[in-house]
């Protein structure tokens, strides 16, 4: 067959086939790839394509593609467009001998690939760090979150900004979920009978491959795992799963199932880590990480994350107040980090920001 461009290792090309190394594999994808099997290409997009195997989906991307539970990051050049290079919906996918073959043109070698799992740096989850982190994060992404989708639910006051049917329904759903989270986080052994309303409004809501509403729920479950509240995540998923089975397509369902296991795109995990540590300087790269996750799905997930963190902060605070029994303590806690003067200016800045949005 013919030559390959100069800066592409000739080894990638052999007799009509391109063979690339897989650099990193997401946690869930790794489980799928641990045994042989057959499947097919389910959908092809610019930078990635989804392969449906017997037990689930995985997503193949080129160099620099976002890390995630379903993702395979390969050595294919970053500017690769899979459709233009011949990947087609329906191409056969064959897994065996440490190699994933896709159609007649592509081979992805799995040996030596690193597995990726979300990692948190010893989060204390101390309410005061959490509250400050949330404020700093909101400040950093004011005006950055896109108008589409539910990203603007990150901010408390969503009344501002252009109205849309998606936001209207989303706000109603979030308010219902906030109330439910508030109770379940305060009283973990709340009777399970109480279903988290608002899920049916949220599931499948909004544009995008994985609807915005699904990403919000995903963000909530991921945040729950991050804060050690796996039980809450499981309860959310127990109610949401049947809705997802009926309403969502296989790709949205796969992402939700991963979130139910506490795993989402790397950018979301980094954002949670930064918020919980309250560290200021990370937010620039955190914002970029979120933006890299599909058009709005990173921001939609962060809406779910911030809602969950907010609810868990209030529940923790109420619990502390009950324990300490006095308002001073609350004041003490609130003031510990910020000098009174800073606080006033701080609050003014945040409110000003929101009008501008």
């Amino acid at each position: 067959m013919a030559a390959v461009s100069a800066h592409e290792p000739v080894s990638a090309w052999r007799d009509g086939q391109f063979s690339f190394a897989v650099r990193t594999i997401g946690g869930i994808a790794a489980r799928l790839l641990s045994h042989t099997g057959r499947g097919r290409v389910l959908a092809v997009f610019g930078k990635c394509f989804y392969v449906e195997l017997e037990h689930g989906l995985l997503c193949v991307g080129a160099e620099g593609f976002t890390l995630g539970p379903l993702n395979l990051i390969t050595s294919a050049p970053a500017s690769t467009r899979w459709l233009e290079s011949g990947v087609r919906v329906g191409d056969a996918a064959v897994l065996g001998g440490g190699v994933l073959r896709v159609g007649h043109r592509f081979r992805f070698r799995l040996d030596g690939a690193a597995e990726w799992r979300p990692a948190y740096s010893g989060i204390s989850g101390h309410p005061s760090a959490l509250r400050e982190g949330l404020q700093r994060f909101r400040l950093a992404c004011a005006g950055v979150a896109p108008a589409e989708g539910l990203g603007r639910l990150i901010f408390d006051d969503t009344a501002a900004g252009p109205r849309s049917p998606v936001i209207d329904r989303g706000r109603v759903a979030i308010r219902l979920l906030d109330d439910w989270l508030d109770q379940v986080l305060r009283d973990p052994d709340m009777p399970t009978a109480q279903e988290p309303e608002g899920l049916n409004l949220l599931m499948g809501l909004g544009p995008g491959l994985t609807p915005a509403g699904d990403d919000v729920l995903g963000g909530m479950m991921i945040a729950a795992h991050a804060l050690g509240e796996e039980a809450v995540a499981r309860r959310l998923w127990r109610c949401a799963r049947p809705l997802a089975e009926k309403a969502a397509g296989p790709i949205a369902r796969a992402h939700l199932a991963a979130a139910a296991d506490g795993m989402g795109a790397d950018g979301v995990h980094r954002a949670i880590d930064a918020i919980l540590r309250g560290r200021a300087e990370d937010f620039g790269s955190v914002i970029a990480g979120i933006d890299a996750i599909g058009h709005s799905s990173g921001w939609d997930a962060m809406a779910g994350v911030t809602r969950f963190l907010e609810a868990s902060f209030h529940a923790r605070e109420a619990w502390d107040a009950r324990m300490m029994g006095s308002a001073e303590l609350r004041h003490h806690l609130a003031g510990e980090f910020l000098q009174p003067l800073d606080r006033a200016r701080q609050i003014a800045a945040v409110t000003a920001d929101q009008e501008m949005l």
Partner: protein
Amino acid sequence: MSRVIVNRVRKGLYLDSVALMRFSRSIAGLAGVEEAALMMGTPANLGILVEAGLLDGAGEHAKGGDLVIAVRARDGDSADAAVAKAGELLDQPRLTRGETAAWRPRTLRAALNQVPEATLALISVPGDFAAAEARKAIRRGLDAMIFSDNVPLADEVALKREARDLGRLVMGPDCGTAIINGVPLAFANRVPSGAVGIIGASGTGIQEVSCLIARNGAGISHAIGVGGRDLSEAVGGISTLRALDMLARDPASERVVLISKPPAPEVSARVLEKLSGIGKPATVCFVGAPPMAMPANAVQAFTLREAALRSVGVSGETPPPALPPVPTIAPGRREIRGLFSGGTLCAEAQAVMLAGKIAVASNAPIPGAAPASTGAAESLLLDMGDDSYTRGRPHPMIDPEVRDDAVRQAMADPSVAVILADIVLGFGAHGDPAGHLARAVRAAGGAERALLIASVTGTEADPQIRSVQIAKLEEAGILVAPSNADAARWACEAVQR
């Protein structure tokens, strides 16, 4: 100002939100479009589409994994255009799986490379290309059957002269019917094979004769259509003479029937002279022609029915069946209105009526009949297969709708006593012409109306099954005669009673 909502659902189609957003905006910007949305068909999104007044029946059943294209526009056209544009945008280059498309040759030359033993080219391309394709065929040693009409006369003449020099046969143009070695071609009927060879200048003439022969227990060796203008002065009967040579040499053909409208005098002389030399008994039926001198081996028939009976040895004089009892026709009604899809069947009906001393007019008059435009005669027989009716519309045998208006008018016309109609079955014809006519008649309704008489040209072996078609006509109160000639005779009797 009526607004139109159009939805289209694309099953299992995945698009990321960037693409969905881009497409929605580009469609919303199209002319006449008020609002457009492309969303995955999740229940929540369908709820949004309802609220935005964008959902219609098609979009309702979309599932989570489907993509819904929803458009509200000023009018139907802009809505459809917008949905079509959305479809275009969505159709990324998809290589369809599926079995390999068998290769179909693009030209006669390539087809002959694939199938060198081909013997006949059946040509039904638009008229102005048909002669050129036929010329290529005869030059490659094939005979040609030209189904296409609207072939210029000069092209027909030049083509047939070259065919004569090459010893080839050109059937047509406008040849709708032929049966070769028992195989029906184009608009033919499925008739048993037998000893009678037919040469016909008209399609429905061949169909009527071959079906009547079949009904009388005999069969056809070959039916060769030569086209309506072959026996004209300009063409000079080249294909008829060639066909006579072929049937003369053909062992399977023991008898020959020749059917056409009255040919030009010197052409008919030349044809009859050739006929006398074929060494086989022949029946000649120049529909509408006066009695003529026939060669020793030939006998003249004046109707298709008579020609069919004579060719199977049944004498023409056997008394035709009489008109069954029918309600008396109201005094005001005097006219016979004939609505024919078959040209020669119309000619035969005119011949029968003229013989029955009834003044007849037609848009395709035989000698002795008045042109339709004069309106002089009381009875009007229309050949609805004529170019004036089929300009830009399919032939009435394919699309009976063409005849419905004329049926309604005739039923509503108080002066019409009898309505005559032919039903032609066989390959290529409409799937249920009788059912169609029956529905048109019932729809026209009206308590007191004209007498309807029809005949069914076809066989039990035809796709439409003749007995089934007859039953449908009789159910609608339409009288069914055994042949086209009988139907015409019954009409005369009904009017003269």
